[in-house]
């Protein structure tokens, strides 16, 4: 039987590299060991993919979804039901980094295609991911590269490639942007069959050599007749790129950093950790699996429990996975998608190319009320299968008195590490409710209600907002 510390460490890993895990899954993974679990997560291709046939049989509107929130619901379904948690978590990471929004693209299936590309490229080389991103039709439209022509450049893609997607402000000049943009002229999208009245048709990338500026360019100290891939080859070798990506990975997987736009003036909270990630980037030529292997096995990661505020998607998906009532196609995924929206994260439609502000900025008065009501409503529902499992676990442990009851609940929901003040309040509630008792049907019913109240209180706590 794995000890409590091993379970807690695996739970931390699964919150960060996935969307949490049930107690049974944690015990199974802990029995295999931490490093073996990391390796399994790093090889999602060895686990079954979502069965698209089943999904589209029962929810046919999800395929080529005509508009939000259906396309968002389709992704929530995948996040809730994936057996490849890191693959889906990385799709969310790349979506937050390479923010592409339906507000402009107005073509939901294309953004869904972009997310699918993130899944395919999630653990390969950063260079290949950037090339695929540059060819991604939704991104081309989002950042206007279809309007970037030989002799009449549009700098939007070229600028954001450097500023937001790779190096960060202050590491290149305006001339670098211009010549990077020239290199991406001719990278566009094929004319496509228009939407409606026969559903949606997909865009395809198209390279038009006649619209490409084949002249000499000067870019970050290099000179040549660069095309787009040459620019990316130069970009991924820049120290600033390694630093920028490392900090994003730290911010998403380890601990909340200051908001991204301030990074050129605010140094990393843990420079040594970021430097370790940079070294892994350099040693692996930007191989994402290698970088994440170092990250998840590092002490700085293992020691960063509950150091991140859950994003709305993380909060919604992890809670739903815990209570276990969305494990197959069913009505209701639209509402889960809308719940993310109401909590401040409209999936597939970030507020701008700068993406969402994260960490503490996920929380405001309205969002907090929604987060609390959502999580407490589900965890307090003793009819749901995941809650039934927690109740069965408490009965199995034979807990009764307030202190052991509270600690067992915190253990089975997490394990969670709650502050003294929160735990005191939970103890006060448990004392007021009295001991658990399973002797009669009536007492059992009362005990289950007490557990529901306790789980709802845990979900409503400040501490529960952190991953």
């Amino acid at each position, binding site marked *: 039987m794995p000890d409590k510390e091993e379970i807690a460490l695996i739970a931390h890993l699964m919150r960060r590299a996935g969307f949490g895990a049930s107690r049974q899954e944690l015990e199974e993974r802990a029995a295999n060991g931490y490093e073996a679990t990391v390796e399994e997560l790093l090889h999602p291709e060895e686990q079954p993919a979502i069965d698209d046939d089943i999904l589209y*049989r029962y929810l046919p509107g999800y395929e080529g979804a005509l508009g939000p929130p*259906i396309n968002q619901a389709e992704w929530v379904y995948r996040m809730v039901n994936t057996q490849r948690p890191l693959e889906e978590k990385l799709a969310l990471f790349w979506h937050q980094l390479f923010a592409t929004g339906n507000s402009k693209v107005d073509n939901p299936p294309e953004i869904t295609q972009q997310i699918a590309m993130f899944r395919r490229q999630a653990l390969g080389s950063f260079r290949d991911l950037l090339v695929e991103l540059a060819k991604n039709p939704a991104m081309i439209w989002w950042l206007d590269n279809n309007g970037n022509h030989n002799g009449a450049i549009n700098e939007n893609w070229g600028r954001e490639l450097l500023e937001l997607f790779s190096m960060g402000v202050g590491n290149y000049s305006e001339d670098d942007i211009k010549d990077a943009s020239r290199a991406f002229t001719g990278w566009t999208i094929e*004319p496509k069959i228009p939407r*409606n*009245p*026969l*559903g949606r*048709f997909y865009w395809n990338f198209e390279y038009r050599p006649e619209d490409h500026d084949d002249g000499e360019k000067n870019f970050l100290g290099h000179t040549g007749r660069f095309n787009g891939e040459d620019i990316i080859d130069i970009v991924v070798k820049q120290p600033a790129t390694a630093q920028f990506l490392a900090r994003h990975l730290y911010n998403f997987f380890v601990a909340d950093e200051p908001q991204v736009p301030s990074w050129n003036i605010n140094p990393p909270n843990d420079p040594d950790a970021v430097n370790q990630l940079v070294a892994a980037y350099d040693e692996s030529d930007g191989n994402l699996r290698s970088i994440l292997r170092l990250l998840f096995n590092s002490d700085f990661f293992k020691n960063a429990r509950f150091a991140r505020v859950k994003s709305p998607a993380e909060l919604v998906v992890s809670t739903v996975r815990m209570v276990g009532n969305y494990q197959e196609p069913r009505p209701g995924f639209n509402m889960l998608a809308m719940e993310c929206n109401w909590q401040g994260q409209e999936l597939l439609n970030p507020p701008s190319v700068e993406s969402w502000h994260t960490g503490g900025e996920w929380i405001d008065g309205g969002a907090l009320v929604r987060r609390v009501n959502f999580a407490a409503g589900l965890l307090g529902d003793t009819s749901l299968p995941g809650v039934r499992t927690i109740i069965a676990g408490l009965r199995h442990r034979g807990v009764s008195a307030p202190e052991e009851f509270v600690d067992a609940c915190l253990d089975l929901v997490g394990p969670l590490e709650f502050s003294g003040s929160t735990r005191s309040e939970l103890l006060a509630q448990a004392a007021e409710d009295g001991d658990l008792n399973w002797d009669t049907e009536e007492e059992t019913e009362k005990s289950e209600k007490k557990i529901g109240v306790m789980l709802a209180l845990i979900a409503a706590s400040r501490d529960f907002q952190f991953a």
Partner: protein
Amino acid sequence: MLTTVAAGRVFDYSYCIGMYGMSGQGFWAPQDFVLGEGDLIYVISRGVEEIGQRITRVTRNHEFLGQFGASGKGDGQFVWPRSIDLDSEGNVYASDDFLHRISVFDKEGAFLSSWGTAGSKEGELDGPSGIAFDADDNIFVVDSANNRIQKFTKDGSFLGSFGQAGEGEGELNLPWGICLDREGNVYVADWKNNRVQKFDADGGFLVMFQGNDNGVGDLHGPTGIAVDSDGDVYVTDWGNHRVQIYGPDGHFVTTLVGDAQTPSPWTQTYIDANPDIVKARRRANMEPEWRFRRPVAVNVDPNDSIFVLETARHRLQVYDKVKDYEEHSLNL
């Protein structure tokens, strides 16, 4: 190819019906249809969550006659409408694989009754999918998640069942569609086993329709089946976006891939009303629009016209099986 010639058969593309519509004129993620009296067609739309569920009445001549049914769990409403058929009086029966029930409407769409109890015991339903009436006005129901076919009177009294979960002959894995031929034999789209099975009326296994060892005639998630007057069998090969045609003994004949090069009149009206769409269509490669996308149901009329319904294109494509075709001079 607008005309497909294979193994002594000729299939001539004719026309298409329908377009996408959240409500009113159009279909939304349609799942099944049935050919009614005269040129009447009933099409059942799945829609998406809590919107778009209904049965549309339309003619073969593109006349929209109205719709009935709506989203919900009440009488005459649907959550996951799946399949549709008519009894001998023309009443409309529709399955709902979320509500585990069959709803009954008159031919104009007035709600009459519903029946069905969720469960796995005899006569209970778990995810009822395809439905089909026999000549005695009894109804076969594909009880999908229970991996069996159940037979009921048209008011829902249990008569019998056959099939069980598995991969062997007579066994099923999440079956979907069903049809009967003129002799009363029963064809079942054995969806997750990627094949169609033919049974006699009592459930005795007769013939298997599936790909051969070389992959010819393969199916990936077959959904709908129909049989023409010659006994040829049409299967909507949902996962491969095509219709596979087999001879009566199960040998593969040919494939239809969709040929809707001319939009339906409803679609054309929509296009003509939007100059930007007209322009965009003139610049694009239109072939993907012609082709089947998620063909889900197929029916054959007494003249051997073949109607194919596509979930993702929200339309029907119609082919004629030509009996008196004369080969043109091939050296033209």
